[in-house]
């Protein structure tokens, strides 16, 4: 295959590592993209595999709470849009697994690690989507948070990941607008609808505030990730960007946010908020959230229930190959 070659001298202390590293860092600092065949530090490769794998898993697991609501969508138009969004999210996972594969980890390994609970996925998908208003809130505010993250990552240094993200961001624009549209319907509807949306926002605010990951003081890899332009903004910077764009829009819909400390600090040009409980965050992403077990079970079931389709395709492919060979003789 084009992309893969055996990583060489890519650990500190290996012969030639220092020279390769300084050439690599100079390239990245120039804004050049790194491509699969290029020399890269082993740690760069590992960090990217970890991030892209978690990202891909999150797309898959994000489709689960939304997918469950497809039969209950309130109108045909909403149902069509939700089906399209769910298909997009699963498509995003496939694009991302492919990007991670160029770094040397197979899709099968990644899917197995997800199903067996070894690999992580975004904190927000460890919670239940209890009402239709949760679906609206997820599609608006969680996709909004994801867009802040993905727009930034799309400018990152690794070519295949950046290319996948450009395509993904294009589709996210539809998710966001459709989510906003659903929230506007509920916010401007009957009192019951408005209350239902307020409830959902109250439920989701804590997970949303954790979505961009531990604050810069707690987060471990930030320095290296920024130097190698895997990430261009810290978790806190992303959280601020999200708050600046969306808190005013939430208020505009006549909704409140369940944090008594949330206020805009004009002087610091930043939102102040109650620091999320990062121990709780870690506990949730380790698989101890309210919906964690359900998500994995659903994912595993889909995988096992689909096994016969894969076997059939495999057999058909073998048949095709046999026919081709016969014709050759």
């Amino acid at each position: 295959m084009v992309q893969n070659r055996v990583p060489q001298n890519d650990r500190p202390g290996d012969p030639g590592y220092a020279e390769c590293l300084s050439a690599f860092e100079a390239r990245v600092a120039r804004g050049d993209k790194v491509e699969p065949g290029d020399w890269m530090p082993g740690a760069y490769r590992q960090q990217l595999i970890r991030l892209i794998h978690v990202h891909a898993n999150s797309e898959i697991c994000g489709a689960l709470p939304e997918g469950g609501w497809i039969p209950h969508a309130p109108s045909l138009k909403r149902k069509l849009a939700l089906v399209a969004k769910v298909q997009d999210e699963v498509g995003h996972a496939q694009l991302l697994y492919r990007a991670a594969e160029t770094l040397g980890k197979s899709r099968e390994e990644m899917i197995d690690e997800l199903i067996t609970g070894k690999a992580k996925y975004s904190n927000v998908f460890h919670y239940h989507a209890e009402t239709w208003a949760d679906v609206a809130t997820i599609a608006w505010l969680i996709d909004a948070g994801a867009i802040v993250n993905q727009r930034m990552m799309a400018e990152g240094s690794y070519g295949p990941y950046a290319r996948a993200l450009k395509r993904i961001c294009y589709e996210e624009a539809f998710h966001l607008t459709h989510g906003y549209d659903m929230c506007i319907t509920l916010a401007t509807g009957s009192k019951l609808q408005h209350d239902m949306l307020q409830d959902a926002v109250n439920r989701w605010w804590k997970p949303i505030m954790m979505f961009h990951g531990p604050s810069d003081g707690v987060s471990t890899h930030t320095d290296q990730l920024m130097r190698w332009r895997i990430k261009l903004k810290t978790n806190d910077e992303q959280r601020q960007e999200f708050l600046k764009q969306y808190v005013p829009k939430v208020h505009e819909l006549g909704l409140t946010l369940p944090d008594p400390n949330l206020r805009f600090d004009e002087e610091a040009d930043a939102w102040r908020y109650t620091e999320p409980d990062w121990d709780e965050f870690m506990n949730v992403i380790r698989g101890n959230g309210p919906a964690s077990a359900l998500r994995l079970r659903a994912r595993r079931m889909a995988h096992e229930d689909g096994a016969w389709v894969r076997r059939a395709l495999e057999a058909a492919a073998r048949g095709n190959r046999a026919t081709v060979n016969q014709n050759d003789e």
Partner: protein
Amino acid sequence: MSDTQWPVFEVFHQQARGEPHVHVGSVHASDAEVALLMAKEQFGRRQACVNFWVVPADAITATAYDDVDIFEHGTDKSYREAYGYETTRRVRAQTTKRPRSLRPPEE
């Protein structure tokens, strides 16, 4: 569970007749026929497209990025370009010097 790691096919799409096929990404598929189906699902959901190509990824041979020498233009290659020739200036310079017989007839 070793039944999902199918071969990779690189996908090229053509947005309209007459346009070139452009690489858009890749899919896993059991064979080329399924790869076309996956390509359509993955890359043909929205954007205009009239044609897909799928190519087994291992059928592609590529140059190496670190082999920069092969793209190095060590010498002046302007003789390969239209801008490397100063026809207009040369013709203008000559018109005044030319023998009378070569000038356009005067009216």
